């Protein structure tokens, strides 16, 4: 199936597309536990990985799944898991460890409603969970946010690449809508270079000193040094890997920001309002970490006001406010969970912000 899909246009559901892209990216090991709305990823992988002779485990829990990823990644292999909201919560400990261990775990997060069990409607309520995280200590995940199924494929490739390039867990933050919708897509080949990990991967201490991958440092000095090293990597990410989509910012009075699949409705609303002569710009962060702080700060010197739209109670808006650092007012429009606001609703909200 991998071969036959490469280079052809096919109609495919988001979850299957992400899974297939992971296989093309060379994912050696998949470990997962079912949860709606991403269960198709594990279902697809259970068949495909066995067909290809790669590793697959139906883990006993998300806790186990993320820790299996830790083990597999410690050998230098490409490992991933996928889950959603309340179950990503269970992985926070493992993500904190993996970040300190500098292990390139790939995690697919398909957001549903929260908090707690919430519901299986789409949501953007896990922006904070993804970008701030719930594990202990100072760490960051690399977080990429696709807006359509084709981009989910392309960013799945990139998630694997960045995780291995920076030796840091990386997350593709999708949502239930994206996971469940079908769109025409093309796969192509994995476009990135393979990263050499022979200098650190565990392979048995043959003809060399033993390697220990651990997050534990009993003394203060080495731990401080280690955390500074992690933050040097985050600085490099901010300098080199920021991605965003920007439209109509040359003449905009109001800049409207949104991430993920919701941004498509926002973009449609802005296009219609611009047809009516309203000077509105559009901005979509694609990397949620590293966040496009620099570009947003530049734009905050040109436009009069920002409006951030999310399906949550205001999570990315805090990062936007930090980025503009008080240069312009930053307003928020959103709803907690469920169907995305319609283009008409969004037009009304944007027009209100123009006043």
């Amino acid at each position, binding site marked *: 199936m991998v071969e036959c899909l490469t280079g052809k246009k096919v109609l495919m559901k988001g979850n299957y597309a992400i899974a297939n892209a992971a296989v093309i990216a060379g994912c*050696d*090991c998949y*470990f997962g536990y079912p949860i709606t709305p991403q269960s198709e990823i594990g279902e697809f992988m259970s068949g495909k990985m066995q067909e290809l002779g790669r*590793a697959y*485990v139906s*883990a*006993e*829990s998300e*806790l*186990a*799944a993320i*820790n*299996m*990823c*830790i*083990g*597999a*990644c*410690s*050998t230098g*292999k490409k*490992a991933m898991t996928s889950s959603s909201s309340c179950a990503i919560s269970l992985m926070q*400990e*493992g993500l904190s*460890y993996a970040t300190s*261990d500098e292990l390139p775990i790939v995690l697919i997060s398909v957001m549903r409603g929260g908090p707690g069990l919430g519901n299986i409607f789409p949501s953007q309520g896990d922006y904070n969970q993804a970008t701030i995280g719930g594990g202990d200590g100072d760490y960051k995940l690399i977080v990429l946010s696709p807006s359509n199924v084709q981009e989910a494929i392309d960013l799945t490739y990139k998630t694997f690449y960045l995780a291995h390039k920076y030796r840091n867990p990386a997350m593709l933050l999708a949502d239930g809508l994206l996971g469940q919708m079908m769109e025409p897509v093309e796969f192509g080949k994995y476009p990135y270079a393979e990263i050499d990990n022979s200098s650190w991967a*565990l*392979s*048995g*201490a*043959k*003809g060399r000193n*033993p*390697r*220990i*991958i*651990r*997050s*534990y440092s009993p003394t203060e000095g080495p731990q401080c040094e280690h955390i500074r090293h992690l933050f040097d990597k985050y600085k490099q990410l901010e300098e080199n890997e920021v991605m965003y989509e920007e439209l109509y910012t040359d003449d905009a009075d109001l800049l409207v920001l949104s991430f993920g699949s919701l941004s498509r409705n926002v973009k449609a609303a802005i296009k219609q309002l611009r047809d009516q002569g309203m000077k509105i710009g559009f901005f979509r962060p694609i990397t949620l970490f590293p966040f496009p702080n620099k570009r947003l700060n530049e734009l905050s010197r040109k436009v009069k006001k920002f409006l951030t739209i999310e399906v949550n109670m205001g999570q990315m808006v805090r990062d936007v406010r930090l980025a503009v650092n008080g240069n312009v007012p930053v307003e928020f429009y959103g709803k907690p969970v469920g169907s995305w606001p319609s283009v008409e609703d969004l037009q009304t909200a944007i027009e209100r912000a123009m006043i």
Partner: protein
Amino acid sequence: METQVFKVPDSFKKDFKYTFCPGCDHGVAIRLVAEVMDELGIRENTIAATSIGCSVTIYDFLNIDAIEAPHGRALAVATGVKRATPDKFVFTYQGDGDFASIGLAESLHSALRGECLSSICINNTTYGMTGGQLGPTTLLGQVTTTSPTGRNVEYYGYPIKIAEHVALCDGTAFSARVSLDTIANIRKAKQAIKKAFEVQLNGLGFGFVEILSTCPTNWRMSPEKAHERVRNEMMPIFVPGIYKDITSKGNN
């Protein structure tokens, strides 16, 4: 006649120094692991998944690659290592709190899946590193810092018999409980560790050894008294023996 050479096993790091408390059985247990690794010639092909607690320091002493798992997750991490690199010898060295309390799901599911892994669990009836709290193996009546009047059923329930539980899993190839209180039992312990390693090397499934061990510091006993406690109080409840061995007919 065979010549026996008394030396430090090659699987140890050069000039290592144990950091365990005097009289703690970890030192004996890790030496047995090292001797078996030497005898099987597997050191250079080994990756260990260590856990949290006193057992984690095994990577300070053995000359092997290791990944430190979060508390309780050693066998999930080991599963990941083994599935990613099936040609490696992969084992865990864990405490009873790690294996049988916080990590019970990971432990038993690894056995149920029949992962070709080997696992050593040190049972000293307490959480040693954190100062002697009640754990999953704390005996009824045992006083700990969190059972100040002794373990009673009303508040704490019962201790777990780990080797028996592991033996019940269909994916388990070998499960045994051993003690280190006498020379004879130390020899038996070594044979059990070797067997638990061999079932992995032969692709037969999950190999497990529970080692009854002392914790003189937290038990507030001399090493000698601590071994008497293993013999007189632990062994009647945690009965040593081979609980499963699929390589031995009629032994299950």
